[in-house]
């Protein structure tokens, strides 16, 4: 690009200095807040006041951070699900639907199976069922992809709508096992008390957050050190090399997609054993599955970083929602604008990590004809 007498170019970096790995995300966040601030200003609120209130209510107060951790818990799981598949260049977009199925599966196990079991058996079993159902929900796209090469992006995405209507059917459309029989108002039937976990004190953080964090760290270690992690990294980098080394692309594709589905299903389970306790159509409103894809992209598909980006994202949401509770409420859309600009700048910042900006003076060259 040439502006006046200056030529502005992006040049690939030969090596990336270490400090850039911290500086680029930090600056991206700053720019996102500046852009978000402009929009806050347009609504007639003070940008700095609003942003500091958002930070306080999202992260800096006890209530804020515990709320944030609570809503970050399933988000970590869907983020891990997306990161796990994307790392192998398998684009599972169906976390949303797999999460609903996880919710359904867990609720079923919690209602039907958990009856006389003690909590330390019932809770893991309920979680496991959710994971299983999440995996089953991605089975069809996975088989189609592994055997016929059908795009898993389209098939997994379309199944989201099926799952969505399945939940609506169970609660609003039928009087089945998932529906609370005691009221005429359509809502989910609560699972057995023994299959539920209480939150920490009066907070809205549940012990499942520990499971989610442990999963992230465990996955990080496992994929770095194990033969399975090694084979997936070879396959992701070069399918021909994997074939050369005798790895089975079918096995790898199937297992990665199924495990990704199980992680997304677990997000739904954690919602059931934690705050909801039932099949709750409220989950359909939040879009945790799609947000998981964003969280994973922000974390650059690093499992441990997913924890941080999920908390960042959940905090923006919690803080943004609580801004409505004030004498001069800020519209909730502002939180969405902020989320969008964080994502945009974080991904845009990548360009500057890989390239550097050079501005050079140019002399105008006369063109010989």
């Amino acid at each position: 690009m040439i502006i006046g007498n200056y030529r502005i170019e992006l040049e690939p970096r030969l090596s990336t200095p270490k400090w850039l790995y911290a500086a680029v995300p930090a600056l991206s966040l700053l720019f996102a807040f500046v852009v978000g601030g402009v929009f806050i200003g347009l609504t007639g609120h003070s940008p700095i006041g609003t942003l500091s209130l958002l930070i306080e209510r999202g992260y800096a107060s006890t209530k804020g951070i515990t709320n944030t951790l609570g809503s970050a818990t399933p988000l970590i799981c869907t983020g891990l699900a997306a990161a796990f598949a994307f790392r192998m260049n398998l684009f599972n977009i169906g976390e949303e639907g797999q999460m609903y199925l996880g919710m359904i599966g867990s609720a079923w196990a919690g209602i039907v199976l958990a009856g006389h079991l003690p909590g330390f058996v019932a809770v893991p079993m309920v979680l496991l069922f959710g994971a299983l159902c999440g995996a089953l929900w991605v089975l069809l796209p996975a088989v189609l992809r592994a055997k016929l090469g059908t795009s898993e992006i389209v098939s997994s995405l379309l199944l989201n709508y099926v799952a969505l209507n399945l939940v609506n059917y169970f609660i609003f459309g039928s009087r089945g096992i998932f529906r609370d029989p005691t009221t005429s108002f359509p809502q989910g039937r609560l699972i057995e008390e023994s299959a539920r976990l209480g939150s920490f004190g009066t907070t809205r953080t549940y012990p499942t957050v520990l499971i989610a964090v442990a999963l992230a760290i465990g996955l990080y270690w496992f994929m770095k050190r194990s033969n399975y992690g090694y084979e997936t990294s070879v396959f992701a980098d070069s399918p021909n090399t994997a074939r050369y080394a005798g790895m089975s692309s079918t096995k790898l594709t199937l297992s990665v997609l199924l495990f990704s589905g199980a992680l997304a299903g677990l997000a739904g389970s954690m919602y059931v054993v934690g705050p909801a306790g039932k099949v709750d159509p409220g989950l359909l409103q939040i879009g945790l599955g799609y947000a998981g894809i964003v969280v994973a992209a922000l974390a650059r598909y690093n499992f441990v970083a997913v924890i941080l980006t999920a908390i960042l994202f959940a905090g923006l949401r919690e803080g943004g929602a609580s801004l409505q509770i004030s004498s001069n409420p800020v519209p909730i859309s502002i939180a969405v604008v902020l989320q969008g600009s964080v994502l945009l700048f974080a991904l845009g910042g990548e360009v500057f990590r890989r390239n550097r900006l050079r501005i050079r003076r140019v002399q105008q060259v006369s063109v010989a004809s």
Partner: protein
Amino acid sequence: MGSHRSGGATLFALSARQVTKRFPGVLANDRVDFDLLPGEVHTLLGENGAGKSTLASVLCGLYKPDEGAVLRNGTQVRLTSPRHGLQNGIAMVHQHFRLVDRFTVAENVVLGHRKLPFRLRANDLEDQVGQVAERFGLPLDPRAVVGELSAGQRQRVEIVKALYHGAEILLLDEPTALLAPPEVEKLFETVRAMTQAGKSVVFVSHKLGEVVDISDRVTVMRDGRVTGSVARGEADTRKLAELMVGRDIDLSPRRSRGEAKGTLLSLSNVGLTKDGVDHIAQVSFDVRAGEIVGVAGVSGNGQRELAEIVAGLIAPTSGEVSINGERVNGVGTRNVRKAGLAYVPEDRLGTGLAPSLSIVDNLVLTRDRGFLVDRKSAHAEAEAFIAQLEIKTPNALTATRKLSGGNSQKVLLAREIFAAGNNSRVLVVCSPTRGLDVGAVEAVHKLLDEARSAGKAILLISEDLDEVLTLADKILVLYRGSVVHEAMGDQVDVEAVGLAMAGLS
């Protein structure tokens, strides 16, 4: 070198004066001088990354030099694009052809011509193109669709295109890389016809092969600088290699020194038929311990299929492959490896190696790994290889795609020949030096020679005839999937091999 400077009596068709071109982190051309006489064949010789392609790109208008000047017939020209270069009579034929596959020859040739009539008359264009082709001895059917032509024919289309657009100077980037010997001969006839018409030709090449032989002058580059410019007959290949690499290079033939022992790899009547087409037909040969059997042939005559059959990637539809007496037809790569086979595929980065993974991780690729990957011992092994084989890399954790072709090939060969837990006795190697520098070629040939001395049975499949002639104890020529010629390495009739490669035996 200094005999003809600008301003003297000689008027150069094209010159570069103190041309400097920088890319991020690289000084590609450092004050380069280059002179081309009218009617001259001139080779620009240098290793990969020596800066010869950069210089050619500057000369044809693709790059603008950061400093220095390009002179056409003694006057400075500031070329802004390849089209602008062509307006000055300078054209370049790139190694990767820039043709539209679905167009006919004539359509491709006239493409981009500014003075075409609004309504194209196919017959007129075809006649014009046919005339240009005929004048320079380039047999081409102007009506043929380019997508159906061989590499040699496509190259002719590119040359005719340049001539049609009025090129006086033709820069050819690695022109013989894809050609069979008879096609190379044909190309040289064209070049002679062009020089007789007063046109000049520049070969850009990294190989000390035939192009050097027909050149009137060779300019050698190394690390972005010109290291020498010699007229025909002033220097032999050894001297040129030294100018290229900066040290003495030994490319003399290497043969088995001991007696070959028992048969380790055996193919009998192997065939591969797919969709009614015979890709491999009735191929039989043995490879014994301590010998290299070389398979020569022009690309696309079944080499890939043959290698993949032996490596267990595909199963033959008839016949039998056995390793160490064990039948291994289509048992899968892992089992073929267990039977004692190591395989260096032609596509080293992308098949033999995982490009984004480190040297360490690539050494692990063909090991038995267990549940957890043992990178500690692989790391030690990688460092030993880096030291022993002089692999140039920042460290053992560098991604293999960041290595030069020669260095990544060393990693691959090290893994397939020497790596721990590799008890292979048969080695299949495909085009191991394709695209490599002279120095790296020497190193790879030395490694293969060492593996042979260590008693391995080696099957060398290469499109580079010189390579097969240099290394093989026994030579087979593959043409359309069949072995059409056999010879012993030390008593080979090169002409007969060349004819067999073209299917003329």
